[in-house]
């Protein structure tokens, strides 16, 4: 495997440069897409056109570098790590780099999304090439000034040096560099080369030299600990988040939505609400979103469900008046579809598992035959509840819908989708929409769904004012997009002490596992292997939740493997290593995990956790899992305190390829593992009569500091392309904990949250 992934496009097609009127050089680029040949670069920094490029680098006359980072920041650290990659190849001191959040590109949208731990994986190649190209342009410009060949010059830390030892700073040559032709790398196929004569005429053909990417051994920024670029603003309380955004004349809106899934608005009385000082108006809205989404509502999906009713917005001069106004509303709701509850779901999912209505997602060999010929068939069922996202910053968005233009500002993980939908909903041109992203107070999947953007836009359109729509915690928890409740039934056949067949059935609310998930380990390791899924369409909205499906699947499968090891009297580590051995050399291209890499993280976690010689009174559970392109193994240490098992430590071994920013990477790993422990221990969410039974943190338990294990991180060191870390350490944690608790208490856990089986008392704030 190589660190260099071939690109589809030549640099000339995704990079453009210009001189800035104010001095300095501007480089615009696009991830993955070729730009239109007619695209022109701005000469004024205030006119950055994100419709043409989704990222910009500015190099000033003084050699200071500003990177306009395109990806939304939800706490996964990409606003720091992605610019690090550019700065590395550009070869400038990190102290000279300033990072600014870019705005939305609605035209050449590629991946301006935070989700799926993919930002780094997709950005790696484009970012390095962009940085290296900029460096080479500067070198070429300096060489031209000196009248020497670029190959005689080198660039380091913002300074270009020639053979005679003369130096020029980047800032000294930006003006000339901006006029040069974009260099290609040696032997590159220029399939995307510009054919636009107008563009060519602008650039000098005189001096070019090919670009070369650094060898990882030359890195001076990548692999070093770099602090969060927004740290000073965060610790001093500066306005960074969507909820902090404010403009002159802005009003606040609090929205009353149906209290139960399945209900729609019949009528409302706003007399008391309107009498509250500070309340400006009460409006009914939702028809535009409804009309738009009903058009596309051939299939029942989350958007249709969230928008399938009129809603009432209280418009007020301040947030408190809006909240009070909403509380004072009296609304009548009717049941448009039957109201559902958790007890019924439980039976429905069990019936699905018992039934025959499955869709096959993977089928190897003959599971039925293996089961018939087995000495023993082991079958277990694993259950998980719905989960709300609970981002600390509740959903909110600012909208200012005017006749000529629309401004949308706030925290959303899918800015392009949101802008396009608003344009369609209000029957406006996408070009009239400017969407600015703020820092996000957590996402975990919730901000992938733009319902709150549509609401803000529709309210602003209706009242003709700039408005901030914001949710309360209760709104967020009760009208959310939840992780669906799921049950897995896994069966394995054992013959002569070996696993000969494996069948996993999934019964889920609304949606089943997708993509390559059915092909994750142990797929590929067992000859007769089958994954079958069934689902029930509920009127409760469900969607992506940090590490979709694998957040629970990992626990079920890894806990099951542990039980199989016990039944076959095998060492659980050796059993996994042996299973992985069988995957090596596979020609099945659906198997994307690497058996070697998974074995290596498992061995590393075992070694570092002292798994082979645990301390007295410490019970350890081990598991290895691959998801979101990253290989992870975790060992949980559990001790008994009285009759309660307590998770003390999680040892995490990670192979995410090259670690861009170890300081930030470890933060993601620690958070993911603790989040995994917290939700598998405490996360519980039920419905009665279509209504969630918990609506705030007094009734919904999140892990708190005094319940938190220490997380110890170990990286597998290699020079493979980097993969993301926002999600992959969460899924294994639940399994490691369940396995350790089994050792500590003798009890196998089959249902999350585990604390419900342990008489564990919540601690409130």
């Amino acid at each position, binding site marked *: 495997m190589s660190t260099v992934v071939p690109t589809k496009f030549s640099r000339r097609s995704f990079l453009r440069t210009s001189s800035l009127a104010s001095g300095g050089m501007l480089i615009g680029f696009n991830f993955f897409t070729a730009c239109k040949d007619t695209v022109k670069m701005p000469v004024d920094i205030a006119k950055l056109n994100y419709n043409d490029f989704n990222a910009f680098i500015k190099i000033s006359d003084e050699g200071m570098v500003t990177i306009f980072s395109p990806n939304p920041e939800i706490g996964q650290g990409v606003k720091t790590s992605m610019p690090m990659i550019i700065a590395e190849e550009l070869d400038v001191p990190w102290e000279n780099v300033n990072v600014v959040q870019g705005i939305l590109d609605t035209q050449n949208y590629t991946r301006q999304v935070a989700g799926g731990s993919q930002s780094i994986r997709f950005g790696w190649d484009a970012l390095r090439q962009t940085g290296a190209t900029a460096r080479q342009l500067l070198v070429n410009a300096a060489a031209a000034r000196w009248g020497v060949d670029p190959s005689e010059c080198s660039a380091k830390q913002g300074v270009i040096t020639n053979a005679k030892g003369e130096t020029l700073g980047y800032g000294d040559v930006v003006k000339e560099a901006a006029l040069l032709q974009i260099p290609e790398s040696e032997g590159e196929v220029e399939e995307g080369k510009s054919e636009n004569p107008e563009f060519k005429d602008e650039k000098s053909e005189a001096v070019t030299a090919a670009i070369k990417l650094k060898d990882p051994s030359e890195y001076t920024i990548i692999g070093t600990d770099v602090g969060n670029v927004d740290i*000073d603003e965060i*610790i*001093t*309380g500066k306005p960074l988040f969507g909820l902090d955004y404010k403009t002159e004349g802005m009003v606040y809106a609090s929205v009353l939505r149906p209290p139960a899934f399945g209900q729609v608005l019949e009528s409302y009385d706003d007399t008391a609400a309107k009498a509250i000082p500070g309340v400006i108006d009460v409006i009914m809205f939702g028809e535009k979103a409804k009309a738009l989404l009903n058009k596309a509502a051939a299939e029942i999906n989350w958007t249709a469900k969230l928008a399938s009713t009129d809603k009432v917005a209280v418009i007020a001069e301040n947030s408190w008046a809006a909240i009070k106004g909403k509380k004072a509303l009296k609304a009548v709701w009717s049941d448009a579809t039957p109201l559902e509850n958790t007890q019924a779901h439980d039976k429905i999912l069990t019936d699905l598992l018992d039934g025959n209505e499955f869709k096959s997602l993977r089928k190897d060999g003959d599971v039925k035959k293996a089961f018939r010929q087995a000495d023993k068939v082991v079958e277990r069922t694993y259950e998980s509840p719905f989960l709300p996202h609970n981002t600390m910053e509740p959903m909110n968005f600012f909208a200012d819908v005017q006749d000529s233009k629309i401004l949308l500002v706030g925290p959303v993980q899918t800015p392009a989708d949101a802008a396009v939908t608003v344009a369609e909903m209000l029957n406006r041109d996408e070009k009239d929409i400017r969407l600015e992203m703020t820092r*996000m107070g957590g996402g975990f999947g919730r901000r992938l769904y733009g319902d709150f953007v549509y609401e803000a836009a529709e309210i602003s359109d209706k009242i003709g004012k700039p408005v901030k729509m914001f949710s309360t915690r209760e709104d967020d928890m009760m009208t959310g997009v939840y992780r669906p409740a799921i049950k897995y039934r896994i069966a394995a056949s054992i013959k002569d002490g070996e696993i000969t067949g494996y069948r996993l059935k999934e019964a889920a609310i609304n949606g089943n596992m997708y993509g390559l998930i059915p092909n994750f380990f142990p797929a590929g390791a067992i000859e007769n292997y089958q994954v079958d899924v069934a689902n029930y369409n509920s009127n409760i909205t469900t969607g992506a939740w940090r590490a979709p499906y694998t957040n629970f699947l990992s626990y079920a499968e890894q806990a099951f493997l542990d039980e199989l090891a016990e039944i076959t009297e095998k060492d659980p580590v050796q059993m996994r290593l042996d299973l992985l051995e069988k995957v090596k050399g596979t020609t099945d291209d659906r198997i994307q995990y690497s058996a070697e890499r998974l074995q290596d993280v498992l061995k590393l976690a075992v070694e570092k956790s002292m798994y082979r010689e645990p301390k007295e009174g410490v019970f350890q559970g081990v598991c290895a899992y691959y998801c979101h392109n990253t290989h992870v193994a975790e060992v949980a240490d559990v001790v008994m305190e009285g009759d309660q098992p307590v998770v003390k430590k999680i040892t995490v071994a990670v192979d995410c390829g090259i670690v861009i920013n170890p300081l930030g990477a470890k933060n993601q790993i620690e*958070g993911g593992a*603790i989040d995994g422990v*917290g939700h598998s221990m405490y996360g519980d969410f039920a419905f009665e009569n279509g209504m969630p039974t918990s609506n705030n*943190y007094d009734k919904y338990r999140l892990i708190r500091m005094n319940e938190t294990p220490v997380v110890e991180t170990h990286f597998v060191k290699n020079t493979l392309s980097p993969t993301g870390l926002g999600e992959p350490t969460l899924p294994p944690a639940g399994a490691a904990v369940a396995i350790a608790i089994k050792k500590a208490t003798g009890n196998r856990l089959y249902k999350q949250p585990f604390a419900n089986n342990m008489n564990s008392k919540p601690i409130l704030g």
Partner: protein
Amino acid sequence: MPTYTLKINGSSQSIEAAEDTPLLWALRDQLDMVGTKFGCGIGQCGACTVHIDGNATRSCQLQISQLDGKEITTIEGLSEDGSHPVQEAWKEIDVPQCGYCQAGQIMTASAFLEKNPNPSQEEIRNAMHGNICRCASYNRIETAVAKAAEKKMA
């Protein structure tokens, strides 16, 4: 609407607001001090923590009419330039992920260390349990509080 005078970060601020307005919303909407965050509105998450006469207090649970003569300190006033030992420790340890809860965490930690300048690990874990960090940066918060204690002692 009635007018209230609040003493915030050492200076008197006059605001016109309904008497039941929580300090949280008065700070955010009327006074444009948005460092104090809205998380749950019921005093369970700690995102809105401020100091009232030096005590860490949930500003979502305090009405502005109850604050006459009280010294209010918010994250904006903890130090002039982010140089409070707790803020410095937060930076050194690189605590935040999304960062939303951190002002509240810092306010709880700074009030706690005034009362207990040399806490044990267990005391830190118990003192901070009222502040939720959904990104679960708890390990780093714990380390940073200990670090801040060291800085204050030095």
